[in-house]
């Protein structure tokens, strides 16, 4: 595995998570319903953490949590050498007229978010879609897409690879920067 540099971990990571939650609370009066939707697969892990913290930080938090799989909406399906595997979409509520906060771990080219918005349109017409990401790689965008809530901004070359790890899945909460994507 390529050598990794730790950009953020443990306490710092949790502070960032809390800051993101407070930003959401600031924008949404608690009575207003919001839909937290994680993008499969790694975005779902972050969405779960955000939802869990939000519920603790805000009394009577009015939110719904769902998972969105965008595999069938990708525009690069037939261009890839190894296809991505589909996961489940689990949104047990209507998003029609709701405020949706899409959640993903890393914002890179913007294509995932582009596909996610197309996928959401097929489930209904939200009144607003916002985007929350843990890592924004701001110089690597292919599409004009920006996040509303950003944990950490990372400036790196295209070949670099950023991974967000969680203590309940990997050993600890941290953000890692690899010089190249490993062939794992």
């Amino acid at each position: 595995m390529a050598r990794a540099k730790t950009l953020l971990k443990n306490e710092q990571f949790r502070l960032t998570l809390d800051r993101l939650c407070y930003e959401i609370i600031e924008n949404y009066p608690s009575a207003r319903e919001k839909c937290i939707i994680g993008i499969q697969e790694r975005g779902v892990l972050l969405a779960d953490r955000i939802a869990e913290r939000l519920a603790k930080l805000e009394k009577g938090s009015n939110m719904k949590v769902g998972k969105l799989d965008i595999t069938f909406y990708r525009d690069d399906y037939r261009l890839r050498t190894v296809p991505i595997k589909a996961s489940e979409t689990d949104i047990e509520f209507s998003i029609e007229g709701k405020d949706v906060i899409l959640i993903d771990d890393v914002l890179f080219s913007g294509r995932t978010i582009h596909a996610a918005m197309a996928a959401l349109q097929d489930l209904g017409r939200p009144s607003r879609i916002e985007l929350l990401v843990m890592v924004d790689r701001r110089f690597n965008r292919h599409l004009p897409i920006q996040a509303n809530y950003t944990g950490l901004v990372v400036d790196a070359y295209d070949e670099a690879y950023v991974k967000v790890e969680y203590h309940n899945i990997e050993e600890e909460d941290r953000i890692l920067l690899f010089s190249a994507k490993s062939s794992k």
Partner: protein
Amino acid sequence: MSQSQLSTKHLLGIKYINTDDINLIFKTAQNFKEVINRPIKKVPSLRDVTIANLFFENSTRTRISFELAEKRLSADTVNFSAASSSVKKGETLLDTVNNILSMKVDMVVMRHPAPGAHHFLANHIDANIVNAGDGTHEHPTQALLDAFSMTEKVGNLKGKKVVIVGDVMHSRVALSNIYCLQKLGAKVMVCGPPTLIPQHMSSLGVEVEYDIDKALAWCDIANILRIQLERQDIKYIPSLREYALYYGVNKERLSKLDKSITIMHPGPINRGVEITSDVADSEHSIILQQVENGVAIRMAVLYLLAGVRGSE
């Protein structure tokens, strides 16, 4: 990480795919089942793909099912049926297909009366080929949707007992089902009048039983086949009434068992011949679920085949 790509670029038959392929198709079909139960039943996955449906033999269910699957994946489709085509004017299969392919078609879904027609094509053309039935040989998507419906009803098929009842000799569904169920670890028995059971059935590793009551007592699931009169060139059974009497699955036969078994039928049903209405419409019958799953399974097959990169 488990497999995310099929091991083959064509679906010619269940014989030529492995257990991992089958499980990947099931997993993907589950995701598509969620899609087709949404208000907007369509995803843009194959919007850059053109699929030709070549039906050299009649079909209603399979053809509609494939067409719906293609449309729900946003593929462009062209349809062709032998009755209204140049085949009647003497064109060969390869010429017909090559003509269609030169109009830039990426995938071919074909039903053909000759066993092996798909293998022949696979050797000569580049497009992905999906077998929608070749004569009395294989009908892989039917076997996949049957097995998928079984797992939905009874869970993992390992060790489960499935009996295939009826006209095994003329049924491509039977052969594909046997391969598919065996790859998933189920035990398979065939049951029918001796004239309609091929001679060397046991060489496939299946049990043969001529007494329907014993077969039903043995199994967990009964997949009942149609008597295919149109394929029978000579008389294999004295009459349909006699077949119904000795092999028809009816409520009386099922109520003699000390358990309830799951009833399946690939359609079209001849009510009152191989199965009675009270059985076909009973709570243990999953015949309509089979049809629903057919679309999801075919979406999964087309989607996954489109993702296979050629070795060239």
